[in-house]
């Protein structure tokens, strides 16, 4: 592809200090994460609690600083010495949609004002421009014009998520980080919001980082998928490949654990154990204590993410 990626993440690490009675320990939230996102593409970041997927998303939009490594957005390195200035230069092109649409909306602010807030902050809009844009945004996300005068509590969860999306699009961003945007919604509402996000991508040429724990939703949304475990990407591949032929034993276990809406489906095997503590991660591959294929090397050496076929990579000693 001739285009440069709009998002480039290199060797990204994040640690958090955790205070306790005996002193301070270090929580390794992200260790050596690398990925690219191309224009118009959706990277699905999937993993269970504590996998680091949300931390990665928050660093990408500048909500929290990285501990080391680099994040470059539209060619601007937001992690370098002048990261603040670089972030300011691209800030208007980034947006974030969170899981809980109610917590993202001020309950005392009318919908019209909430959607217009980014426009007011960016300034330079006449009153008429501003109101026209709000009406246009409401139409874009499929809400009636009258919504302008109403308050968040008058809307259902699905409608509130539409409002949040309208606000995120107010300044015409190029890249939107969606962190579990449909996991608080009922199935019948979830499908509507997924389709809306896909339609908006087609119409506006958006790129997404789509963070979710639900593998089926990630499949519906993504172009490429990266599977995270205990702070690292263990496998990345185009979506059709990762679902049809997962390579990493964790990707397999994760896919196998998803309950199918099909009573004739029989699960092969349930993976044992739990996600390790990030305060004291196991040596070697973090998945080895749960991995049915682990051998001596897995206990001592951390596997790097290496190409394992056309357009895909896996971090597993079985593929060396």
């Amino acid at each position: 592809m001739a285009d440069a990626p709009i998002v480039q993440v290199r060797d990204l690490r994040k640690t958090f200090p955790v205070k306790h009675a005996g002193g301070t320990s270090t929580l390794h939230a992200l260790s050596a994460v690398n990925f690219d996102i191309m224009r118009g593409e959706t990277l699905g970041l999937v993993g269970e609690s504590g996998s680091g997927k949300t931390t990665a998303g928050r660093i990408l939009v500048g909500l929290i600083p990285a501990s080391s490594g680099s994040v470059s957005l539209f060619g601007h390195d937001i992690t370098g010495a002048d990261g603040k200035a670089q972030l300011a230069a691209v800030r208007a092109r980034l947006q974030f949609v969170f899981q809980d649409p109610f917590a993202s909306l001020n309950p005392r602010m009318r919908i019209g004002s909430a959607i217009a807030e980014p426009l007011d902050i960016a300034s330079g809009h006449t009153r008429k421009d501003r109101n026209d844009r709000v009406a246009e945004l409401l139409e874009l996300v499929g809400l009636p014009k009258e919504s302008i005068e109403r308050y968040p509590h008058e809307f259902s969860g699905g409608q509130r998520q539409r409002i949040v999306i309208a606000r995120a699009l107010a300044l015409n961003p190029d890249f939107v980080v969606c962190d579990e945007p449909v996991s608080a919604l009922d199935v019948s509402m979830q499908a509507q919001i997924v389709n809306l996000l896909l339609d908006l991508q087609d119409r506006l040429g958006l790129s997404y980082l789509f963070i979710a724990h639900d593998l089926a939703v990630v499949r519906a949304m993504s172009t490429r998928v990266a599977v995270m475990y205990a702070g690292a990407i263990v496998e990345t591949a185009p979506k059709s490949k990762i679902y049809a032929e997962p390579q990493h034993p964790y990707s397999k276990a994760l896919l196998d654990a998803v309950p199918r809406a099909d009573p004739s489906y029989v699960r092969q095997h349930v993976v044992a154990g739990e996600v390790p503590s990030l305060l004291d991660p196991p040596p070697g591959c973090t998945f080895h204590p749960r991995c049915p294929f682990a051998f001596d090397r897995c206990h001592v050496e951390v596997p790097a993410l290496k190409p394992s076929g056309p357009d895909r990579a896996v971090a597993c000693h079985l593929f060396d």
Partner: protein
Amino acid sequence: MAEPLLSIRNLTVQFRVDSGWVSAVDDVSLDVGEGDCVGIVGESGSGKSVTALSILQLHGRATTRMPSGSISYRGEDLLRAPGAALRRIRGREIAMIFQDPMSSLNPVLTIADQISETLRQHEGLTGAAARKRVVELLGFVRIPDAARRADDYPHRLSGGMRQRVMIAMAIACKPRLLIADEPTTALDVTIQAQILELLRELRREMGMSVMLISHDLGVIAEFAQRVVVMYAGRVVEQAPVAELFSHPVHPYTTGLIAAVPKLDSDAKRLTTIVGRIPSPQEDIPGCRFSPRCSLVQESCLLAPPPMLDVSALQAARCPPQVMAWGDRHG
């Protein structure tokens, strides 16, 4: 067929709101047989949890009323049973586990303290005998190093381990019926698979009946033998699990199954159900799904539709579709 273990008939549950009383559950009937595993599936506001809480009457009394219906457990109507009888049944005959294991556990008591409370209450076990049984139960729910774990406080345990503790507590007195209300919803998917497997093993080993409540059709398909689908306070369809997924009859069931994102589908868009879930306060004459139904007819808007038999095992609250099914299959 013998009398079912639990039989709910025409249950209506109302909550007090500013403007009067609204029905969260409306004319619900369902049975759970001995050794049965019944799944109740529905979205927010469907009344699935309210139905479950009504069985043990765990609602706040001042703000809830049950103006009609009966809940009969082994021939005894729980809605009219005296408090002492209910206390005997709760935890001993019918036990319940909930979605969030952390808020169901007391943070200042050890695991052993909390499990022995049930044993003391119902079986009079104390001291070393209770302790022995606690460790046994923790082993039974596959908690490693049970003897040491018994003295831990809940915050020391992961979400999956806490749910195992809740299950240990629920099965402490070998109940005949376990009501599990979204038991795996707060858990990661690999842990969910472990907990469902544990519940399945326990059901087999103990021969208990289970009522599993979930919003997740995948969990229901995997676990339940019979499924009750609820929408906006009413039961809209009941069928054995294979029939429900292979030929759903109610348009809501059909729509819900279609709306679940599939792991093996490359469709460009998900299938949706238009509109939104109504709030209990909304007065919808006739079928409560009619505003969202693509097959709606004039008759649907007139009166609440009755539940009609599709076959001996399947029934749906949609006369047009039940009749259409009958025409197609003679």
